[in-house]
Structures are given as structure tokens and as C-alpha cells.
């Protein structure tokens, strides 16, 4: 994957398939403390301890169309190649939380990429699911919570083009402010 944001899009898809109705994506980064952490948490069907061990194995997948499942292994690799760490906590019937921690300045660090675009596509393609996106840097943080948007929107769907544009602009403006831009 060329960007970590693509790994997020991929792994968040597992939450969708686990029938979650709330998925939280948290990106915490700090230049001062030289780390970046990505957390993807859902309230989907969860996995047994045995299944958690299996998803780390590239030659395991629950799918029948092919024999390999590379989503989680690639995400894990991207963190570990920077000297970071990777963890999955899951409980059957409760949900799954995946955490990848990176050493930001490491030579093998993959750029975060367009994480806002990832969130926009996730919302657009899964308008029935709620997403919380939290992004924090040394300069501050912001949150997008689709449950709040839904309250305002009433019966207007989140995948309405004008709503998606509002979301994209909201993410862009807030990202600029936490990156210390104008």
C-alpha cells in the first residue's frame, strides 16, 4: 500500500463485513514524541482468540473467492517495519479494536496519505453505518461524528452529494488547522 490511509480503508472494510454499526477511526500523531498511531475500533461481531491469531496469517481468509487475506498482514507489516507495534483486541459479540503504532521519522515509514478521502469514501459507500473520525497532532485535534450529522440531517442520507461535499470541506479545513496551516 502506498499510503496508510489505504490500509485504513481496507481494514475498516472488515468492520463493515462484521456488521458493525459504529466504526471509530483515530489517528494520533506527534512530531515531538515521534509517533503515529492508527486505531480502528468497531462494535461488530468480534472474533475468538483463535480467529485473532488467524487473521494475522496472510494465508487465512474467511472468503471463498481466493485463498489469501492480506489486509491485516499488510497493515501489521507497515507498522512493524518502522519499529512500531501492532495489536488486535477482539471479543465475540462485542467488537474489534485494531491498533497500529508507527515511529514517524523511521526511513521505512509509509506516508499517512489522504486519510480524509478514505473517510469520505467509507461514509459514501456505507451510509447506513456511523463513523467517528478523530485526528490529533501536536497542534490540537478535531472530531467528525456522523451521528451528530445524522441528527441535523433527519431523513436525508449521508451519501447525498452535497452532504459529502460538506464532509470533505469540513475534514479539509480542520486538517489544515491541526497541521498548523492557514
Amino acid at each position, binding site marked *: 500500500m502506498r499510503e496508510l490511509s489505504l490500509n485504513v480503508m481496507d481494514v475498516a472494510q472488515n468492520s463493515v463485513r462484521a456488521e458493525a454499526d459504529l466504526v471509530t477511526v483515530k489517528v494520533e500523531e506527534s512530531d515531538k514524541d515521534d509517533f503515529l498511531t492508527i486505531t480502528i475500533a468497531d462494535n461488530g461481531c468480534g472474533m475468538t482468540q483463535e480467529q485473532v491469531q488467524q487473521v494475522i496469517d496472510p494465508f487465512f481468509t474467511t472468503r471463498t473467492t*481466493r485463498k489469501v487475506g492480506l489486509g491485516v498482514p499488510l497493515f501489521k507489516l507497515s507498522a512493524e517495519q518502522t519499529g512500531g507495534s501492532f495489536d488486535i483486541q477482539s471479543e465475540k459479540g462485542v467488537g474489534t479494536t485494531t491498533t497500529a503504532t508507527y515511529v514517524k521519522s523511521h526511513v521505512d515509514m509509509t506516508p499517512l496519505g489522504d486519510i480524509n478521502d478514505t473517510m469520505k469514501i467509507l461514509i459514501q459507500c456505507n451510509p447506513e453505518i456511523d463513523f467517528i473520525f478523530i485526528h490529533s497532532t501536536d497542534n490540537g485535534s478535531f472530531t467528525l461524528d456522523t451521528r451528530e450529522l445524522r441528527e441535523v440531517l433527519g431523513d436525508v442520507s449521508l451519501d447525498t452529494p452535497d452532504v459529502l461535499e460538506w464532509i470533505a470541506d469540513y475534514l479539509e479545513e480542520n486538517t489544515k488547522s491541526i497541521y498548523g496551516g492557514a
Partner: protein
Amino acid sequence: MKSLAELKAIRDRAQAEMNMRKENPNAARVLVGMATCGIAAGARPVLNAFVEEIAKRGLKDVTVTQTGCIGICQYEPVVEVEIPGEEKVTYVKMTPEKAVKVVNDHLVNHNVVSEYTIGTATK
């Protein structure tokens, strides 16, 4: 800064238009393969290109959505176009540029872009 008040205005406008775009059985579907293989091969810009071109042309009865891996990872990014009453078409090795052509030729004019289809690729 974007405000929730602005969102309210969007809601009011959307509600006014809503009856027009509700549940059309003739809606076409564009399915972009977005599993690990598709994403790694560049499906995200392809999906964005479809959404943008469809919005630009103001096409109302088309939905763009993601789908999983259908087992032909070597041909990703794969896009399936389903128009009710017509045969489903599978496009392979898609790019944002090809996506624009598929919108214009296939979705608008109902001419399949045969040079991008899987049938042509496997010949």
C-alpha cells in the same frame, strides 16, 4: 469554518429534491472492487473519478458503490457496471481516465467500451 447551520440548509434543499430521486428501479449501479487487491492497485482514484464524472454530468439514476474481491486480483482495479435490462459488464485494469470514458460511453450512451472489458483482456 463549515458549520452545522450550513448542513441544515443542505438538508432542506435535499428534502425538497428527495421525492424525485427515491427508489428508482431503473437505477444503474457501478461497483468498484475495493478489497486489499483493488485498493493496492489504485481503486480509490477510480471510484472518485466515477463519482466526480457522474456528478459533473448530473446523472441522477446511477449509484456508485464499493464491492469486495471477486477473485480476479490480477485484473484490478475491477469495475462492474449493471444497467437494468442489459448484461452486466466487467471492466478491468481501470484508471481514472478510463472511468470517465465508461461514464460517457456506457452510462450515458449505452455503448459498452469493449476494449476495457475482461473479455478483451483475456483474449
